[in-house]
């Protein structure tokens, strides 16, 4: 299949006609360079946005109680809203199809000690589902589970920074740490993309916390993730409905903004998503434009080349070159120039992005780069572009009549 001689012919032709090869290559290289840089910058913007919310699940909904600001149904303003286990059960059962994961949360600040090490940390008492909503990554042991909930075990899952603080280099699993005088057994260690602050938390079973801290069924906050099959509008409808129902349940005025706050990630995600997709389309149009300009450029040059080589092609035909052989020469030359030049453009573009990346942080551009798949797609596009650019000129060349080409003038 690999025709060594054909390639020889083509390399000779490219090599002996450097100026025109360079010229046509330059057009394509420049187009790809622009395309890469544009795409990289758009990616960088995207990265900035998505990094800001990497901490939690993208479909998270947070429900926080506060104090009422308006009197309602005979109740005074300033009343404190307190969530309880029954509210958790209510949301879980009444909104079942809309909910993926759900957890209650209780906050406590604790002083934790192990051997000689001692420090203050925030404690979160949660349901097992919390792991998925917060996107907690277990690196050792396990998270809180259902059995912990039922048995109200004194288990604790600690952040990696807590482990470093308290255990130094010791293996924490199965060890007991002391929280304000009560011993808890470490069952797991986690990391979190949300950063250092997130890794200073400790997690324990909600039921245990309710038993130990107050012996009640109060919860401070309820977090959930909506059904991932929902689109943004469905998700927003769901959380609005949830907010309305909760307000009714707690006799809160409809327009009271502070008593119960439902924060839905879908709302901000929708906005960001719209912005980035508009940006993406814009970049795609501009990129495609440059690419098409490049293809037209090389096609033009190839037509010129065919014109210039009319006589040569005539000679080749008189000597027995089939139309196919002529098409191959022109087409492969076009593909070769496009691919090599395009790749150079791509490399330079990636280089520029690499080099300028760190200094662009101030402009909301994080880690501007092009993905492997884009590089792959670009390669195929280049080959396709070369074929496209070369095809018409090649066809034209194959139609050249030797008598016309060889006419002495």
């Amino acid at each position, binding site marked *: 299949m690999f025709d*060594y*001689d054909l390639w020889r*012919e083509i390399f*000779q*032709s490219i090599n*002996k*006609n450097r100026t025109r090869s360079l010229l046509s290559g330059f057009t394509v290289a420049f187009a790809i360079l622009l395309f890469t840089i544009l795409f990289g910058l758009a990616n960088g913007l995207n990265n900035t946005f998505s990094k800001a919310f990497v901490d939690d699940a993208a479909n998270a909904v947070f429900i926080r109680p506060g104090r009422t600001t308006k009197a309602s149904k005979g109740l005074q303003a300033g009343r404190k809203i307190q969530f309880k286990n029954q509210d958790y059960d209510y949301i879980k059962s009444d909104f079942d199809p809309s909910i993926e994961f759900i957890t209650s949360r209780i906050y406590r600040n604790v002083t934790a000690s192990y051997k000689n090490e001692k420090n203050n940390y925030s404690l979160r008492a949660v349901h097992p589902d919390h792991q998925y909503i917060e996107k907690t990554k277990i690196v050792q042991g396990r998270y809180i589970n259902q059995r912990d909930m039922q048995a109200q075990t004194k288990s604790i899952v600690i952040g990696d920074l807590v482990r470093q603080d308290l255990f130094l280099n010791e293996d924490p699993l199965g060890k007991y740490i002391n929280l304000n005088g009560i011993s808890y057994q470490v069952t797991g260690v986690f990391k979190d993309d949300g950063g250092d602050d997130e890794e200073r938390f400790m997690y324990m079973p909600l039921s245990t916390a309710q038993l130990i801290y107050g012996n009640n069924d109060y919860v401070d906050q309820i977090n959930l993730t909506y059904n991932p099959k929902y689109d943004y509008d469905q998700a927003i409808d769901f959380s609005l409905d949830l907010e309305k129902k909760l307000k009714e349940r707690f006799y809160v005025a409809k327009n009271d903004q502070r008593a119960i706050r439902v924060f839905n990630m879908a709302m901000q995600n929708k906005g960001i998503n719209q912005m980035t997709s508009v940006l993406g389309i814009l970049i795609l149009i501009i990129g495609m434009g440059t690419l098409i300009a490049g293809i037209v450029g090389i096609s033009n040059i190839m037509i010129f080349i065919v014109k210039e080589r009319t*006589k*040569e092609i*005539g*000679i*080749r*035909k*008189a*000597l*027995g*070159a*089939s*139309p*196919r*052989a002529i098409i191959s020469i022109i087409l492969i030359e076009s593909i070769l120039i496009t691919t090599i030049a395009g790749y150079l453009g791509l490399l330079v573009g990636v280089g520029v992005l690499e080099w300028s990346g760190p200094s662009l942080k101030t402009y909301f551009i994080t880690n501007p780069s092009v993905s492997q798949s884009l590089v792959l797609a670009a390669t195929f596009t280049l080959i396709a572009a070369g074929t496209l650019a070369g095809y018409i000129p090649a066809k034209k060349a*194959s139609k050249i*009549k*030797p*008598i016309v080409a*060889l006419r*002495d003038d």
Partner: protein
Amino acid sequence: MLKIQQLHKSYPIGDSSLHVLKGIDLSVEKGEMVAIMGSSGSGKSTLLNIIGMLDEADEGNYILDEVPIKNLTEKKAAVYRNKFLGFIFQSFNLINYKNALENVALPLYYQGLKRKKRQEKAKFHLKKVGLLDWASHLPSELSGGQKQRVAIARALASEPKLLLADEPTGALDTTTSYDIMAFLQQLNDEGKTILIVTHEEDIAAMCKRIVRLKDGVIMEDNIVEQVRAETYV
């Protein structure tokens, strides 16, 4: 070897058409050396183009080495040209960025020969025209006579049954012309069939047969006493 019957060819010019060949009958046997003469517009180049399969006749039969040449696809024509014919042109038509050896080897490339074999054959033919020492020179570094010799070597490379020469000495001075003719005569002596289109009487006289065309018909077709080119050199 070559048999042509009632060949007609016309070219459209605007609404009317120009009848260039008006019923040509010609047969050439193996080993002949034929000059086709005629003033410009007599149809001699058109005839050569049809014989060379660069153009197709409107009417009539053309049989080359017992193969009827008719309704050829481009691909088939390319194969036949490569196999049966060797072309020699007035302006040499060498490929300017290929050296002498590569030019000679080109028809062999289209025959699908391996590179080594091509080089070998090309060298053999280049040696035959006495230019082996110039193998790596580009056409621009050769004199007119040398270029035509390279072109002849290229025409010979595919070992064709018929050599077609279109004004082969038209771009050369007299001495070089005779030199080239002497070489063509030598090839003919070795048994090659050669067709030469020319309008120069002295060149035609160096062939064995002269066919004169006028206004698209053959006026004369004579066997002549060949003038040996060496006598002039």
